[in-house]
């Protein structure tokens, strides 16, 4: 199974350095670190996902001595690995460029958002295809824009909520978040295995 994650690394070998380069450029520009980290994590993870989505890649992986469970699981474990791989340079970069050490709460926040996203994106993509994810998220965006018309200060409110969440100093609260995100992730994992086992190539 680790071989499958290594495979994703080999396939991403050419794009990863570029991604890191972009990452550093973004870090110089004064954009929210969390935002950049989330976007990069998702892009890298979904990129790896997409490479294996073609029917030929599925033919190959399923003909090799791997079970479908392992193929799906490698994506979920790999995603965690890619999150770490993105957060590490961001953490270091932030420290070197801005001289600040990221708070663990921020890291947790980023990880939770990305894991939450994946929990929906993976089963959705296994069921349909990741290209429809764009349509799906487009739809979500339209809904967001529409909501924005009715609640013009939505962005500020969201920011407020995020700020309040981050400033909360209740370890039990954080524990609940970690637990629920982990639970969501595992459920999504099981669901994806179920969907993928029934697939036809």
């Amino acid at each position: 199974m680790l071989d499958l994650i290594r495979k994703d690394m080999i396939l991403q070998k050419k794009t990863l350095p570029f991604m890191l380069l972009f990452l550093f450029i973004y870090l110089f520009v004064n954009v929210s670190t969390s935002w950049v980290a989330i976007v990069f994590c998702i892009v890298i993870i979904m990129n790896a996902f997409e490479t294996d989505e073609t029917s030929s890649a599925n033919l190959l992986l399923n003909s090799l001595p791997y079970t479908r469970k392992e193929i799906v699981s490698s994506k979920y474990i790999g995603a965690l690995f890619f999150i770490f791989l993105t957060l590490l340079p961001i953490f270091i970069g932030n420290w070197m460029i801005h001289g600040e050490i990221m708070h663990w709460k921020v890291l947790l926040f980023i990880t939770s958002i990305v894991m939450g996203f994946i929990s929906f994106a993976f089963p959705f993509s296994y069921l349909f295809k990741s290209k429809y994810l764009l349509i799906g998220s487009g739809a979500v965006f339209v809904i967001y824009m529409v909501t924005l018309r009715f609640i013009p200060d939505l962005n500020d409110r969201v920011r407020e909520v995020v700020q309040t969440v981050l400033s909360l100093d209740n370890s039990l609260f954080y524990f609940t978040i970690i637990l629920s995100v982990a639970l969501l992730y595992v459920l999504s994992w099981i669901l994806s295995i179920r969907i993928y086992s029934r697939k036809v190539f």
Partner: protein
Amino acid sequence: MESVIELQHVYKAFKGFELKDLSISVKKGFVTGFIGGNGAGKSTTIKLIMNLLQPDSGTISIFGMDLKKNEKEIKQRIGFVFDSNIFYENITLTEMKEIIKPAYRKWDDSLFDQYVDMFELPLKKNLKTFSKGMKMKASLTIALSHHAELIIMDEPTSGLDPIFRSELLDILRNLIQNGERTIFFSTHITTDLDRIADYITFIHNGQHIFTKEYYKIEEEFAIVKGGPNLLDRDTEQEFIGIRKTNHGFRALTANKQRIENIFGDTVIIEKPTLEDIMLYTKKGEERDARSYS
């Protein structure tokens, strides 16, 4: 004799297509050619054997083990080649090897290098730039580098020139020298089979027509040619398929001996090719369909 692949009463239905009660066994140590027209179900059958599809009912066992329960163990021992390229396109052959290699316990780098040399494949070039023939050679190299006991190929010779096809057959022949390896491959270039196939498995319209030793086909089947006056409602029943012209008929029989007894010297009896058998089976079916309607 020991069977390596054993399909028992396998059903699989898709929209507009059905594999019906397919029972096939592939003998260990031999080459089995898998023939049938387009859409006969060859690729579907191969996908079922590779567990890329699951049967609606029936069982599939390979190396005497249930495919569902021992999928990993079984696939360790299979080398596969598909008709289309299934490699990632933006990497080199060396990188592809690095991806495949860890999957197999018995991967053999020296064997890999040997085939790369033999096929004169570039290791550092993007797989995207490979020609169709080179891609096939690359697939073959990967399939043969882990000492597989069973080699499954879907149309490996399609789109290849005669020289490489001939080379491929030589390689396959060398592979089966020790008697431990089994080769199962589908093809529609039936002349490839003349040289190497020990058994022929023929499917038509999702149904298994026969699996026979190659020489038995020549013994049992025959192309019969004769004048038009020889055919009537009864004699027509003796044939699988008939092609009639004003000057005479050409037909396929599955019982050469019987035809010789019935017609004697009034007809010419010839060896059939596999293509004849495929063609006349289809023709016969059309006739039957007409007579039913």
